[in-house]
């Protein structure tokens, strides 16, 4: 039982915190948000140079072979600084989907020898961005729901179907797409993973912004050429998404702490009835409630980091669902109350707090909302 970080981990976390504090002021973020990609290519390159994109890439492909605790520390900083870069989609989810050895439960597929190591190396360096394209319309959070079809061609495969809310698809070089090589739309078996170039023929996108200002697209695939990465990939997808949940929980904790800190600062400064509003007990108790939820969420982010690579998939999912449900509830409560306690100022786009609110809300909706994970937890309960 040990809640301390190793010296190397602490240094990594400090380095990321320093980077965010130095390179990602709220003013600079505003300009980035208004830019064409909704994130900064320059920042992405720097993150690559500093090694932050290589954490989950195996050492033989130029990566650092780090684990969930390192990701937790990096994501804390990302949550605090509201980074817009596609860290979760590319450096975590797509990396893990391409790697395929996140969990011992993920079976070795026959195409493992074909592992796109070179792609991982280039992703680690920040030269290439790849994002997952899995969710489909009508699937909600059911990971088995894949209707997109893959058909064999002389050169490989051709994909046809539609993917919903693919984060950062507009800026990605590659998409990691799930599609059926066998089975009905919600079968566990028959889901395969493919690598698709974003500019491949037959791929079209409807672009939009997400609640937190990031860019995304619904992706239409019409006989799009694709390279097979893995067959029967549902366990791999589940393992990668559970790892992603742990990362999101850690990001949320960074944003939650920042929201609580900002709210405390604001209520100590804002004067009404001749005194700082922080002196009013109704608000003090609200902030005490917020503090409790932040600490409970932090505890769950630790649990999530410790359990997200569990080789027992059922136990892993149960723990990750517990974490995501609780963190989602904390995100909603602390997010809403921090706006409430900022009063009218909390409504403005000008203050960081409304951006934290939007990011926290987005986090709750990503990789399974609270209701989904409460249900998954209840069903998986021992």
């Amino acid at each position, binding site marked *: *039982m*040990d*809640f*301390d*970080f190793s010296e190397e*981990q602490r240094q990594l976390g400090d380095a990321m915190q320093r980077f965010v504090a130095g390179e990602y002021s709220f003013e600079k973020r505003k300009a980035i948000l208004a830019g064409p990609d909704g994130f900064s290519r320059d920042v992405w390159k720097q993150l690559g140079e500093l090694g932050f994109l290589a954490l989950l890439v195996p050492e033989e492909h130029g990566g650092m072979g780090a684990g969930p*605790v390192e990701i937790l520390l990096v994501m804390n900083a990302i949550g605090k600084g509201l980074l817009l870069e596609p860290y979760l989609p590319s450096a975590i989810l797509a990396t893990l989907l391409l790697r395929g050895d996140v969990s011992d439960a993920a079976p070795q597929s026959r195409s493992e020898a074909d592992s796109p190591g070179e792609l991982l190396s280039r992703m680690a360096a920040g030269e290439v961005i790849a994002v997952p394209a899995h969710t489909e319309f009508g699937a909600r959070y059911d990971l088995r729901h894949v209707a997109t079809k893959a058909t064999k061609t002389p050169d490989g495969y051709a994909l046809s179907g539609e993917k919903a809310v693919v984060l950062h698809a507009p800026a990605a070089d590659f998409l990691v797409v799930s599609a059926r090589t066998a089975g009905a739309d919600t079968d566990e078996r028959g889901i395969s993973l493919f690598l698709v170039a974003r500019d491949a023929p037959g791929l079209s996108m409807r672009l939009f912004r997400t609640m937190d200002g990031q860019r995304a697209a619904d992706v239409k695939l019409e006989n799009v050429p694709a390279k097979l990465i893995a067959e029967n990939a549902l366990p791999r997808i589940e393992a990668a998404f559970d790892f992603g949940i742990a990362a999101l929980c850690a990001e949320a904790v960074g944003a939650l702490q920042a929201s609580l800190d900002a709210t*405390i600062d604001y*209520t*100590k400064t804002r004067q009404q009835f001749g005194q700082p509003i*922080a*002196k009013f*007990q109704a*608000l*003090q*108790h609200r*902030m*005490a*409630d917020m*503090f*409790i939820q932040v*600490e*409970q*969420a932090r*505890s*769950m982010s*630790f*649990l999530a*980091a*410790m359990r997200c690579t569990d080789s027992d998939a059922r136990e892993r999912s149960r*723990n990750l669902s*517990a974490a995501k*449900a*609780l963190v989602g509830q904390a995100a909603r409560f602390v997010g809403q109350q921090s706006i409430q306690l900022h009063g009218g100022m909390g409504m403005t786009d000008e203050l960081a707090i409304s951006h934290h609110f939007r990011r926290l809300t987005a986090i709750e909706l990503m990789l399974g909302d609270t*209701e989904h994970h*409460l*249900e998954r*937890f*209840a069903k998986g*309960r021992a």
Partner: protein
Amino acid sequence: MNLSFTAAEQAFREEVRAFVREKLPESTRRKVLQGREVTAGEMMGWQRILAEHGWGAPTWPKEHGGTGWDAVQEFIFDEETAAYGAPRLLPFGLRMVGPVIMQFGNDAQKKRFLPRIASAEDFWCQGYSEPGSGSDLASLKTRAERKGDHYLVNGQKTWITLAQYADWIFCLVRTDPAAQKQQGISFLLIDMKTKGITVRPIITMDGGHEVNEVWFEDVQVPIENRIGEENKGWTYAKFLLGHERTNIAGVGASKRELQRLKHIAAQQLKRGRPLTEDPAFAARIAQVEIDLMALEVTNLRVLAAESARRAPGPESSLLKIKGTEIQQALSELMMLAMGPLGLFFEREERPDLPAAAEGALSPTYCNFRKTSIYGGSNEIQKNILAQQLLKL
């Protein structure tokens, strides 16, 4: 970072588990598992069994007859004994006055009182609250006038848990009425057999006799029964409140009650299916289970920070609030799981009643409303968090 227990800790867990299975009286266990009232004699009896094994004071250092366990061992002990159905160890001696005597008492007091707490020979109760002094404890009025070699104590204490069985009471009394509230208070140890003490029962809404009023009329208390300095009692009281709260998360007992809730809900049918399969009820069970998982990690984090640092800080207020919310949620769900049978309000075992087999669910629901009130109400805990930790 590592949330696993070490091999040595696992071995310790096995040792505790084997011990409790062998030594816990079945009649006591049955009452605990059914949520029925465990008598003071049964609670002290269990502590005596532990004391014979050298475990009478699990939270104390070795020099005072304790086990010298670290925070993780204490946690494991609490979890294992609670899971099997051991009653809680009464906190008044072990968690409250014991640590105060260790920290602020003189050698004679340590020698006289501590061994008899660890061996469960003396039964202690706590004399803090008064009719006019609850959350505003420092406004207390019970007066102790110095008369030569003793104090003359007059006044009334209330909500005194199990005072009807107590050999001793530790009291906050006012020794300097002229001083500012917190400054004129002293900490006295009073023999319950002293002339002038009257104990009157308070029956709570669950029908139980757990708490009492204690009246003091010209009660003579020797000066040597004062802890520390005169008029410094508030300092000792604050120290004590911190110790009281670290144990209050009650994770071990809540884990046991969660299993009991699942068991009860699995037995009850809704439209012919177990209640555990009802999505709405299953979600409510899942919610409290998840809250408890988070609290367990939070509890371990607070314990780890404390053992590395110092006495309990304001974080323990978090444990008190969350711990009691979970205890209340569990008792509420167990009652609700019974549907109309939740109306049964029998405290004693009644094999002729169908719901009786599940234990005293509705009385426990009523009784557990106390948890967010005692030990510094949850609103007071939020004041502490807001003012001491968030610096508002």
